[in-house]
């Protein structure tokens, strides 16, 4: 009897702080453009991946990419290649690497690095236009990257 609430407490604790298990952006190991290891060890949630990709304040991938499988997205941009069939062109490790830091795959890419915290010129705190207070967080969390990768893996030709 006494054990059960404890278990529940432990479980909700681990759910609330997945960040502890995340590989920090500066510790991510790139093999060329590839990142083999999951950033969190937890499986990605493709539904949340869609949310991250289509929300302005998160990934906002649709600012530049179109995705035929998401016809409800209003006014996607046309700057970058369509993401349709992307899982037939790239492996999971390659996709993780592209989303974490596309510059490792495409030299000098216009695509932002979503899991990077160093090496910027005058970084700001989000979209405030001011210097960040404290450490600069990556644009997306490790779990959000895994969620995006999980969704990208569904985009087969």
């Amino acid at each position: 009897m006494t054990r059960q609430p404890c278990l529940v407490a432990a479980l909700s604790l681990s759910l609330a702080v997945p960040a502890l298990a995340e590989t920090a952006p500066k510790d991510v190991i790139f093999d060329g453009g590839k990142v083999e290891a999951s950033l969190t060890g937890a499986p990605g949630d493709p539904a949340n991946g869609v949310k991250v990709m289509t929300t302005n304040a998160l990934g906002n991938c649709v600012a530049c990419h179109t995705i035929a499988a998401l016809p409800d997205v209003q006014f996607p941009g046309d700057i970058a290649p369509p993401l349709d069939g992307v899982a037939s062109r790239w492996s999971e490790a390659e996709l993780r690497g592209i989303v974490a830091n596309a510059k490792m795959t495409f030299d000098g890419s216009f695509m932002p690095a979503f899991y990077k915290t160093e090496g910027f010129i005058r970084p700001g705190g989000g979209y405030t236009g001011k210097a960040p207070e404290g450490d600069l967080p990556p644009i997306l969390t490790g779990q959000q990257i895994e969620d995006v990768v999980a969704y990208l893996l569904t985009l087969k030709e």
Partner: protein
Amino acid sequence: MHRTAKTIAAFSLAFAGAALADPVEDTLVIEGGDGETIEIVTSAPAPAHLADVMDTIYSGWLYREDETRDLQRDDFDNPGMLYVDRGLDLWNSAIGKGGESCAGCHQGPETMAGLRAVTPRVDAKTGALMTVENYIDACVTQRMGLESWNWTGNEMKDMLALISMQSRGMAVNVAIDGAAAPFWEKGKELYYTRFGQLEMSCASCHEDNQGKFIRADHLSQGQINGFPTYRLKDAGILSAQQRFVGCVRDTRAETFKPNSDEFKALELFVASRGNGLSVEGVAVRH
């Protein structure tokens, strides 16, 4: 016969290219307030210093929707004219410590014709890089004994609108050589620096991707010949450097301030990319 067919083929090819990515084909002739019409040059051959990166320069007007473009065809429809009128009232007011007015020393605002087309420029006497705002500020503080106006406040922008209007239709022609060269070089460096957590430069959006859509926004060349601009989204006018603040902020960067050395140099460089386009006075954008 043969030639016609060829011409048509060439034309439709060019047209298909244009449809993909480009500004609309349209011309801007403005009905002025007092019945005169002003022709605005909205596209021109790129100035020599841009020869490596583009052939043609385009006003941001050509990238906007029909309704937005129409607002600029007639001064009665252009909401920016309200600010010009306010600027004229201010021009004529005895606001100085000793009762001075701009009109008292300069006569009518038309004595300012041509200034907007050649600024920012290096002042021959002081060697300082001067925007229109810097000139206004010098008179406000040194000749009228007042505190500086807020750089992006109403008085400054109303006056900027009034003075810019006096050059409407004139070709932008800022100097980039001689004393201006070091400022211009500095501005150029800033233009190509990839700022912020998104690591984007002005060129990333306005040179490499002009004509494309970033979400719903049709990317122009980021020209400033139309400034100050009435922006429908803000329901107010904004100066070029205010626009720079917004664009730099959107790269998740710490911005520079209006009238900083950085933004003044950048304004000179961006202005020089529009050498040959008309000053639009007060443009309308979304």
